[in-house]
Each structure stands twice: as structure tokens, then as C-alpha cells.
């Protein structure tokens, strides 16, 4: 019964989104149909939530008559993994996607009271249209409520052991919040083009949404990277896997969008460029969905290959992107007035920044899609590995850090000469100091030295600018703090990437009981293995004693065999540290009788900085909008009685001003 309720709720979401879609058309305004948009948005959210709760309760009730539950759960699974298993496969994760989509739509409704009605109705109508496509996709090709009747299995297949982890609980929801959140700037861009609201106001309305979804996307990607690091047992944190790239591309476009929007917001230029980036960012989200869910590319992430799904998403992608670009081409205006700015101005640096991000985007796009194109044209199968991406992203990272370091000290239009000198002195004095400090330490990697010194330079200039503003009793705006925190986070992240990828020590060794191996500053002694029985798996645990002078600790790495399905999993043992991680995982047993194992030993300096940096970036994105948005929300609540009094405008929720 419960799955049928869920199914029915999903059908209602479909009907309501179709209803809401009418809001975009001119004639609907004439007949007052646009008044239905707001209730339909709320309804879509409510019914999507009901559908989602139905799926989760089917999991909790071990209802294996539902095909999706039967293939993704098991009675032995702990309750929290039963909940997260709801988004552990294609159908359920897409339902989560829809829930998040309707959540964003409701947020737009709640937080955009001040927008002109026409603009708001257009934006919500576009959101409804996109949601219509999503729900249609779910119902037609990937219904999570499909039943297995009358052949109901007694036991489920089990969730992939890789997914029986905290990572599954947090990574997909966070990533989807970002992925799907980019639909808001997209819908605002289209609404601006349709209603002709392409002026400065558009950028100030869009910026908070772009910031927040970018922050979630950043966190989602970082969580995925951290999960891969501790769960896959290879010690890597980024693999240039097509699906990682699928989330990285919208991130690159969204980052460019944030920077372009800040120029549009402050100076009224790059308007069309911002509109185009808003369209691009969400289009890349859809492209990502296509890559992950169509099965055209394979990776750890790919879902079951089903040509029907791929064809649907591709058609939808074509429709949405084609429609958006056509609207852009027809409706965009070229402004005649021009604004001049010198090379040493914020505008120039932000333009340069956008160039870098677009370049990065082109590289990832090419590296991800070219194997497909190559196979289609020549029939040969190729792969593009990490060396291709690294060849570009190492210099790109350095260029970004260099161009970022003076940015907090620049002014709009033209930076005063004295200020340029000041920034110059700061760089010139700070740089050798760091270089000498670093060279005294024994770091034999130039990339590590460069990323450390440039990263710290960015940190120093941004803190210097904030302290200086405080000292001169100038206003330190929220967006300035947000920008500084995000930039510092980026620098911290790049310090982590640059250092860990060039100074890590990685060794695969053959170890027998009581055998000793050296790694980085540590000495590792293999004490032997233990057998462990758990409810849903059997494990062989390797016990290691690690010592560095007086610092002695134990690490236990496991090789697990899951009882249902028999999947084998490597569970790495990690001693995390702010400045370095010690990472051990068991390879395969070379000789079971004598207890000889292949063992993977990693010493990874600064690897935590990657994720700490990402958290700071996300925090920066949120700082600059959070208070603004909350105040707007409370303002709306306080004003509501006023709206109710004014019954001449029956839209109620939609009242613009």
C-alpha cells in the first residue's frame, strides 16, 4: 500500500508541475492562471516529500516486493543504512533529486517576495517546467516504486558494501543540493531574458542563489573526495573519473558565474556573460546527470546501463539547453554604454579569473567527452588519464593563486598608484621570507614550495586587507569577509593539493609477521592478522605498530568479505593529522599459511588541507548571503498580515510589493 501512495504522490507532483508551468505563458496572466503557480510549487514539494517518505518507510519495513528495495537493501542492514539506501541507487537517488528540486523551488517562492510578480512567475514557471521533465523521467524510466509481484523475494540483494558507510548518508544529498541548486540562477537568467529584467537588479537577485548552491556543490564534491580517500582503499582523493568530472564542470562554471556576477552587480558590465554562465552552469549539471545515469561512460559511479534513460536525458538536455540558448540569442540586448577600467583594477582581474575558469572547464569537458566522440568517429576505445588533466591544472592552479593574491587590495575602475606599490611591497617582502623558510625545511619538490608560498601569500594579503579596513574604521562588508574566507579556503585547498601530491610517500610492500618497513618519518611493524566476525561481514584484520621516536600508535586495516553477495572490501586504517596522514591498507594475501601480505603504506602530508580548504570556501560562500536572506525571510513573515489584508491581489503568496 505504502509504495502505491508514494507512486500516486509522484504522479500528483507531475500534474502540479504541469499546472505550474502554465504560469510562464502570457495568456495565463490574462486568465489569472498565474495565481496557481505558488500553490502548485508548495504542493509539488509536499507530495515529493510524501513520495520520498514512502520510499524510506518501504526500506525500513524491508518491503522486498518493491524491486528497488529488494535490489538495494537487506534485513541485516543497520537502520541508518536502510534510510540512506533509499538514495543508494539510480531510481531512489533520482527521487531525492526531485525532492531537492522542489525544495529549491519552495525556497525561491519563500525568499523572493520583493521581486516583480512577472519575473517571479516566469522563474517559478521555468522551474516547474524543468521539474516536469524530471518527474516524467522518474515515472517513465526509473520508477522506484515498481513492484515485484507475485515473485516477491524473501531477502534483499544487499547494498553495495562501498555504500554501507557514513559517506553515502551525507555525500549525495549535499552534492544534489549544489547540482540542482544551480537551476535557480538558470531560471532567473531565463526569466530575466523573457521579462526584459536584464538590468542590474537581476544580478543582485541571482547572486545569493548562485552563492548558496555553489557552497553546497563545493561541500558535496569535497565530501565525495574525502569518502573516496578513506573508503576505496587506494589512498587517492581525486581520480579524474568521468563522474567526478561531471560534478567538477558545473562547479567550474558556477565559480566563474560568482565572479562575473560580482562585477555585474557592482559595475553593471559583463551582463550578458553572466546570463550565459548561469545557463551554462545548470546545463552542465544536466550533462552530469546524463553522464552518470545513461551508462555512456563507466566509472565507480555508473548506474545500470539502460539506453532508454540515456535517450530521455539526452532529449531533455537538448530541449532545455537548446531552448535556453535560443532564448538568450533572441532576447539578449547589447548595451551601448561602455565602462572603462584600467589593467590594475578589480574588473580586469575578475575578467582574467573568468578566463582561467573557462579554460579549466574546456579541459575537463574535452577530457571527459572526447573518449565518447573518439569512439563514435573511429570505433576505437580510448581513455584519458590523470596526466592530461594535471598537465593543465598544475599551471592553472599556480596562475589562479598568483592572480588572486593582490585581488583584495585592488579597487574598482583603477587602483591608486600608492595602493599598487603597497601590494607590491607586501608580495615582495613576504615571498622571499616564505621561500627561505621553506628551503630551510627539506622539501625537495618545487611544486610544493610554490603552492605553499603562493597559498600563504593569498592568506596574508586577504587578512592584511581585513585588518587594514578595521584599523582605518572602514566598513568591512559581509561580502568582503565572505570573499576573503572563500579565497583563503581556496589557497588552503591548493596548498594541500600541491603539497600532498608531490611530497607523499607511497609504497606497496610485501610484509610478513613482525616484518618492518619505513615510510616517511615512520617505522611500520606488521604484528600479524586477526579474524573478526561481524553481523554482516567477516574480516581479516591486519594489526600494525607505527612508531616515530616517542610517538607510537597502532593501526588496524581490514579486508572484509560481506556475507550476502560475498563482495570483498578493503577498509583502510588512517591516522589523521593536521600536517600529515598515515594510511595503511591491506592488499592481497601472498601466502596465507605463513601470513605474508601485500601492504599499501602511504604517508600523506597536508592531505587534510584539501578538505579544510573546501569547507572554508563553502563557508565563505554562505557568509556573504546568509544574514541577508534570513532578514529578508523574517521581514516577509512580519509583513504577511499586510498582504492578507490586501485581497485585491489574490495571489497571496506571490504578492510582489
Amino acid at each position, binding site marked *: 500500500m505504502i509504495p502505491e501512495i508514494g507512486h500516486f504522490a509522484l504522479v500528483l507532483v507531475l500534474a502540479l508541475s504541469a499546472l505550474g508551468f502554465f504560469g510562464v505563458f502570457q495568456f495565463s496572466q490574462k486568465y489569472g492562471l498565474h495565481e496557481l503557480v505558488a500553490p502548485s510549487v508548495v504542493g509539488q514539494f509536499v507530495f515529493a516529500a510524501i513520495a520520498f517518505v514512502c520510499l524510506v518507510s518501504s526500506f525500513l519495513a524491508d518491503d522486498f516486493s518493491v524491486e528497488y528495495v529488494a535490489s538495494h537493501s537487506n534485513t541485516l542492514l543497520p537502520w541508518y543504512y536502510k534510510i540512506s539506501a533509499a538514495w*543508494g*541507487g539510480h531510481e531512489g537517488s533520482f527521487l531525492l533529486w526531485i525532492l531537492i528540486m522542489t525544495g529549491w523551488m519552495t525556497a525561491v517562492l519563500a525568499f523572493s517576495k520583493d521581486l516583480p510578480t512577472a519575473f517571479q512567475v516566469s522563474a517559478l514557471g521555468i522551474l516547474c517546467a524543468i521539474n516536469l521533465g524530471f518527474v516524467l523521467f522518474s515515472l517513465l524510466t526509473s520508477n522506484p516504486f515498481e513492484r515485484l509481484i507475485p515473485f516477491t523475494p524473501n531477502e534483499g540483494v544487499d547494498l553495495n558494501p562501498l555504500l554501507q558507510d557514513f559517506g553515502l548518508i551525507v555525500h549525495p544529498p549535499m552534492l544534489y543540493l549544489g547540482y540542482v541548486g544551480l537551476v535557480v540562477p538558470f531560471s532567473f537568467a531565463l526569466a530575466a531574458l523573457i521579462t526584459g529584467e536584464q538590468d542590474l537588479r537581476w544580478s543582485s537577485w541571482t547572486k545569493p542563489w548562485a552563492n548558496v548552491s555553489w557552497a553546497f556543490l563545493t561541500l558535496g564534491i569535497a565530501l565525495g573526495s574525502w569518502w573516496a580517500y578513506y573508503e576505496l582503499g587506494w589512498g587517492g582523493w581525486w581520480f579524474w573519473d568521468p563522474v567526478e568530472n561531471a560534478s567538477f564542470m558545473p562547479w567550474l562554471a558556477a565559480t566563474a558565474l560568482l565572479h562575473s556576477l560580482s562585477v555585474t552587480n557592482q559595475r553593471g558590465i559583463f551582463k550578458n556573460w553572466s546570463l550565459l554562465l548561469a545557463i551554462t552552469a545548470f546545463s552542465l549539471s544536466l550533462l552530469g546527470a546524463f553522464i552518470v545515469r545513461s551508462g555512456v561512460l563507466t566509472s565507480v*559511479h555508473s548506474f*545500470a546501463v539502460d539506453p532508454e534513460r540515456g535517450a530521455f536525458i539526452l532529449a531533455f538536455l537538448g530541449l532545455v539547453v537548446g531552448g535556453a540558448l535560443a532564448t538568450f540569442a533572441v532576447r539578449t540586448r547589447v548595451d551601448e554604454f561602455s565602462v572603462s577600467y584600467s589593467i590594475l583594477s578589480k574588473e580586469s582581474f575578475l575578467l582574467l579569473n573568468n578566463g582561467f575558469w573557462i579554460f579549466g572547464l574546456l579541459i575537463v569537458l574535452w577530457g571527459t567527452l572526447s573518449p565518447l566522440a573518439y569512439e563514435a568517429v573511429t570505433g576505437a576505445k580510448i581513455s584519458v*588519464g590523470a596526466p592530461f588533466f594535471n598537465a593543465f591544472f598544475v599551471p592553472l592552479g599556480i596562475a589562479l593563486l598568483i592572480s588572486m593574491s593582490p585581488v583584495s587590495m585592488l579597487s574598482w575602475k583603477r587602483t591608486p598608484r600608492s595602493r599598487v606599490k603597497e601590494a607590491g611591497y607586501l608580495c615582495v617582502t613576504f615571498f622571499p621570507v616564505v621561500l627561505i623558510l621553506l628551503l630551510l625545511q627539506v622539501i625537495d619538490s618545487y611544486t610544493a614550495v610554490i603552492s605553499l608560498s603562493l597559498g600563504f601569500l593569498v592568506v596574508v594579503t586577504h587578512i592584511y586587507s581585513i585588518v587594514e579596513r578595521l584599523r582605518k574604521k572602514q566598513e568591512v562588508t559581509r561580502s568582503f569577509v565572505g570573499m576573503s574566507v572563500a579565497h583563503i579556503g581556496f589557497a588552503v585547498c591548493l596548498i594541500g593539493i600541491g603539497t600532498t601530491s608531490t611530497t607523499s610517500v607511497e609504497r*606497496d610492500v610485501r610484509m610478513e609477521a613482525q616484518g618492518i618497513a619505513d615510510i616517511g618519518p615512520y617505522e611500520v611493524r606488521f604484528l600479524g592478522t586477526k579474524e573478526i566476525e561481524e553481523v554482516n561481514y567477516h574480516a581479516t584484520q591486519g594489526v600494525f605498530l607505527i612508531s616515530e621516536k616517542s610517538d607510537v600508535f597502532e593501526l588496524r586495516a581490514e579486508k572484509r568479505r560481506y556475507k550476502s553477495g560475498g563482495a570483498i572490501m578493503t577498509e583502510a586504517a588512517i591516522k589523521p593529522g593536521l600536517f600529515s596522514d598515515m594510511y595503511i591498507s591491506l592488499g*592481497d594475501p*601472498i601466502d596465507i599459511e605463513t601470513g605474508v601480505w601485500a601492504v599499501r603504506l602511504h604517508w600523506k602530508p597536508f592531505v587534510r588541507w584539501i578538505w579544510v580548504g573546501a569547507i572554508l570556501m563553502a563557508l565563505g560562500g554562505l557568509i556573504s548571503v546568509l544574514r541577508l536572506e534570513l532578514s529578508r525571510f523574517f521581514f516577509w513573515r512580519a509583513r504577511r498580515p499586510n498582504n492578507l489584508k490586501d485581497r485585491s491581489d489574490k495571489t497571496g503568496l506571490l504578492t510582489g510589493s
Partner: protein
Amino acid sequence: MNVKRKQRLQVILFSMTALAVALYAIFTAFEQNMNIFYPPHEVKNGLAPVGQNIRVGGMVLDGSVKRAKSDLSVSFILSDLQGNDVAVSYSGILPDLFREGQGIVAEGVLGSDGAFVANTVLAKHDENYMPPELSDLAIAADQKAVGTSLVDKSLSPNIFGD
């Protein structure tokens, strides 16, 4: 030509040049870093280049995996189960799902003696998954060896939702 037009022309010229340089760099790096996939029969017939980074995929032949006693080097034979074999040597830790009789993909360099030295070995991600490079091969092998199904289409892989 007025000043505004001149400025616009400069911007367009600059961005076109930048784009051209960027694309040139991308294509050059791409040519140097792409790995072409070869099935065992192409390697055996000398169609795969020697001394270049390539990928070779096939089934690990039963009983062919030999581990060294003193270090982590291992050797095995990749086959399409139709008489075309490639000897592969590798040093390091093999993936969890590496087993005899399973499909894998090895990345590395082919020597002039026809032996393949792998620097990476990729296995299936879970029990039901098959690398697409191998699926054609597997279906062919499947038709030949009835009863040992290599691609089980009745089960959908349970993999993670990004």
C-alpha cells in the same frame, strides 16, 4: 573607426587568440596522453604500438596468475578465450576483484618481445559489473562457452548514486 569599435575589436582579437592557444594546448596534450584500448587479438597480430602507453583488456586465464616469492611482482595471462593470449607482468597490489577467470583491463607498455608491462590494473567494480571495453568480448565468449555466463543481464549492478 571610433574608439569604442577599436576597443571591441581588440577584445575580440585577444579572446580569439587566447581561445586558439588554449585549444591548441588541449589537443596537443590530448594526443600525448590518450591511451587506446586493444583487445588481445589485436595485440597478438601486432596492431598495438610498442613502447607507448596503451590499455589491454581480457579475461585472466585460469591458473595463469604467478606471484613472486620475494617481492610484489606478479604475472598472468590475459586472453579473449579464443586462443589469443597476452602475457602481462605487474608489480604492486592487485584490486580486490582481481581473480582468475574475471575480466580486467591493464594499462601499461607493450615490449618488443610481445610481453606487456602493466603500471595499472583495473578490475570490475562489483560482482555484476563489466567494463564496457570488455562487454563485446564477453558476449562473444559467452556464446562460445555456454553455461558460464560472464555478463549477467538479469541483475542490475548496485552502485552508488554519485
